[in-house]
């Protein structure tokens, strides 16, 4: 069996918020129950798309860093492939690249000749932020 995990979580969240929470008597428990339901929906979205979003980030960071004169150590990290697509492994890879990106972002602010890199990093950060927008909880 291959369960549709994200949909199953959304169904559980719906059940929690629509059937169980209204039956609660304490306002605290109702608010907590609704929050938990919304968080389950956030997790469902993350389960469905989270790894793909991180992989897109990783590809884009590699492209941005491709224009940098990386040290040997940095190059080793930046050019390494991924052989394990678990969320934990992809997160670790994402973190490694983000750390290098932060270092080069700082360098690009101090060196006028790296203006194009600075711009490319801001563009990446904007796309990254848009890619990871949480829509399961609407703005009040």
């Amino acid at each position: 069996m291959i369960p549709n995990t994200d949909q199953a979580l959304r169904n559980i969240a719906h059940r929690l918020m629509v059937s169980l929470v209204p039956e609660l008597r304490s306002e605290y428990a109702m608010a907590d129950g609704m929050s938990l339901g919304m968080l389950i929906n956030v997790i469902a979205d993350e389960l469905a798309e989270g790894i793909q979003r991180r992989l897109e980030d990783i590809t884009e960071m590699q492209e941005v860093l491709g224009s940098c004169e990386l040290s040997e150590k940095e190059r080793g990290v930046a050019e390494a492939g991924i052989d394990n697509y678990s969320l934990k492994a992809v997160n670790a890879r994402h973190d490694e690249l983000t750390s290098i990106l932060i270092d080069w972002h700082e360098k690009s602010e101090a060196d006028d000749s790296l203006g194009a890199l600075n711009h490319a990093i801001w563009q990446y950060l904007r796309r990254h932020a848009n890619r990871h927008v949480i829509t399961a909880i609407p703005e009040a």
Partner: protein
Amino acid sequence: MISLDQVKTAASAFLEEKWEKPVAVTDIQKIYGGASRETYRMQLDVDGESKGVILRRDPPSSLIDTERELEYGAYARIFGTDIPVPEPLFLENDARYLEQAFSIMAAIDGCQTDVGALPQDERELLGKEKYAILGRLAAHDPIELGFDELMAVPALDKCAEEQLSYWESVIVQDEMHPQPIARAAIRWLRRHLPPAAQKLSVVHGDYRTGNYLFNTDGRITAILDWEMCHLGDPLEDLAWSMDPLWRGTEKHLAGRLVPDDAAIQIWKEASGLDYDEEAFQWWRIFASLKALAIWISSSEDHEHGEGKDSILAVAGWIMTDRQNRILLDYLAPAEVSV
């Protein structure tokens, strides 16, 4: 986890000791959203007289690592001035009653915190009062109020730098993943430190929608949640109160109440202080960074702390996402498209 019955029993025993009268808790409710303390509203029968109190108990872990003495001390020094706060009644550090330290304040009845349902004319009235109170707070001499007995007194030219260093340290300590936008914001803030504060003020530290009570006449009856209170530049609170995060979908209204220019004008008149646009912009970006630090910290707390309150996850996941986008709007070059 402590039960409502345990809180009820311990609170009545504690208050009987303090007041030397029979005390019965006739109603108790836990209030959701108390991010730094567990909060309970209790109705009491004190020797035949009805009385409402709020009990705030330290949780195993909290959104903001603060000292309860500081918060309680702030209430004690502000109460009785022209800044409305609940009357502080007791601070108890002995864990024998409720397994954790706690404080008790008088409840203020018939009030609400949600401005969302108010018509615009009532929001304007509330906005005028909110920013007038903030102006009055800025005008007070913190030394005269006795705040120097409670907390560090920064030099006027160190207010910004010290706050930045503190919240940077929170991010460094609590980030579970590298934070490129927070790091960029910290570097920008370091490069553009504002001029010395024009005066030293009591900074509430979390002056925003949700942290004040108002009644049906549209009057603010209490400013709450002083746990991040400190001494510093009065522009800090003004900027924090106007962060985009507190606007919801009403992007043009500071704290969902009044337009920015109106809020600033009311604050200026009430405080008698100058408004420096450039310094204010620094404090706005700082406010977003500080908020981001709190959300990063709450995420860490949710994952590693003893408490698993859902508010920590809501703050850690959702607010981090939104605050990062706010900082991007401030810092990214204009030509970087949305």
